[in-house]
């Protein structure tokens, strides 16, 4: 006698994907204003100054707006801080943003 055959359904749910276009990249970083966003984790206090120093040597006129200006993007105030970021970036004339640190 053969085993019973059953038909089964999917255990997951509809994917809500609203694809959004990325921002245009910059041609290079010479003379550009680069802002920093930091989650206050994983040695960003050491990593961001090293990045500033390295890119500063390679790209004349590059300017950095340091992460303290924007607040902690991961924590109890995360939603409020992140919501305020676009306006602050505009205020500081950001051309590009470095976000860290995911580890």
């Amino acid at each position, binding site marked *: 006698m053969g*085993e*019973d*055959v*059953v*038909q*089964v*359904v*999917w*255990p*997951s*749910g*509809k*994917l*809500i*994907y*609203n*694809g*959004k*276009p*990325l*921002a*245009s*990249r*910059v*041609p*290079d*970083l010479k003379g550009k204003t*680069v802002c920093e*966003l930091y989650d*206050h*984790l*994983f*040695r*960003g*206090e*050491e*990593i961001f100054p*090293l*990045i500033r120093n*390295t*890119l500063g040597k*390679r790209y004349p006129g590059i300017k950095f707006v340091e992460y303290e200006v924007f607040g902690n993007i991961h*924590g*109890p105030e*995360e939603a409020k801080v*992140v*919501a305020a*970021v*676009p306006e602050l*970036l*505009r205020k500081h004339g950001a*051309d*590009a*943003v*470095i*976000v*860290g*640190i*995911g*580890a």
Partner: protein
Amino acid sequence: MRASVTVEKAGIPTASIVSTGFLTQGRMVAQHLGMRNIPLAEYPGVILTESKEELQKKVEDILAAHIVRALTAPVPEDEAGPPEPGFRDTVFEGTLDEVQEFFHDNLWTDGLPIIPPTLERVERFLKFTDRSPEEVIGVLLPENREATVWNIAVNGVMAGCRPEYMPILIAVIEAIADPEFRLEDAGSTPGWEPLIVLSGTIIKELDFNCGSGVMRVGRQANTSVGRFLRLYMRNVPGLRIPPGGTDKGTIAQSFHVVLAENEEAAGELGWETFGVDRGFKRGENAVTVRSVLFSSPPTYTAGDRAEEHLETLAEVIGTRGAAYWTGVSAQFAKSHPLFVMSPCVAKVIAQNGWKKKDVKEYLYRNAKVPAGLAEKFARMVGISNFSFCEAVKEGKVPKAYCESTDPNRMVPVFFGPEWIEIIVSGDPGRNQSRGYINNQMQGAPVSKKIELPKNWAKMRQG
């Protein structure tokens, strides 16, 4: 990634620094936030174990180049994913063994056999709710998928639940879908696991265990509902360990069975039940879902005075247990310790005239940790410059954490009596308690009322 996506939407290019081990998770989170092709800047290695020299070399030689590429190089087009099954679609037809293999291959199981979710079985679950199967409870991160009454029933079937558990299952998913719970952080490296606490008359009615071995697998109700939640977290929000990519629990832990309170025992002591503490009426059916990061040892206490018990609980569960996470909790301004006391321990304390609020006050006042030690533990987690005084300055914790800057000063393990929760459960014949420590703001306790269908009594009879 949430900040990066916000910035890209504002029209400014980003480079998101991610260490090697977290690239897959980063990509998946970005994908579900609507930017599958967002460029990441890889840091090659484990940041917290590198020497200063290694870190400097990798930033200068590798990471800087990755950042430049992310900000300047053209990015590939966003490609749509493959089509997915629709509501009620049959996704497979086969024997019991073939169904198991198919579900394992698609990462739709927890590694244990499942009950095949046939339409007939799912419909049996749906009879135990008045809500429409199409109803969307929420959209769950990280995969950004709809939680529906339908897929709750499907996963309930798979986990081995009985159809009459359905109202509880719905309340559980309502709890984790609440933004306060922060389900999106359930794949974080500490590897916390949700715990369902059950309150109300439904405990007895559906035969949940609230006595000996309450936290052990073995009773169908406690076990299958506990399993359901972990299975659901894999299948809908997509929190899967490898070969999945969004659950990054470093070592992690497995699912908890449902913790049900012995409400009769609590009532006999003159204590409010946990359900009442959470804002429900006595006997009202409700679930509270919260994270558990770690639990204390089984803590034995003896004597006929309340202080004899509480002194040891403060020492073992507080100072020698929860204190490890006090710094991290302070950084995120939340901590929700849960004390589970067997009825005979709670009885001694209550007979001494102590109410729950007195117990919480005692535990708050007597569990202390050297500030410098807790700060060191937090820094090792990755909060590089953590200090309690900074946390006080930012309004995250009370002033008691920064009465001086002496690293040897003693600070409270718990933020205040109001943060501590107590449940009476476990073997009434043994003098034991246990503490369950949550993961700061991740998996904060969320309670939801269990809504029974109008014809509940009739259905239970028939």
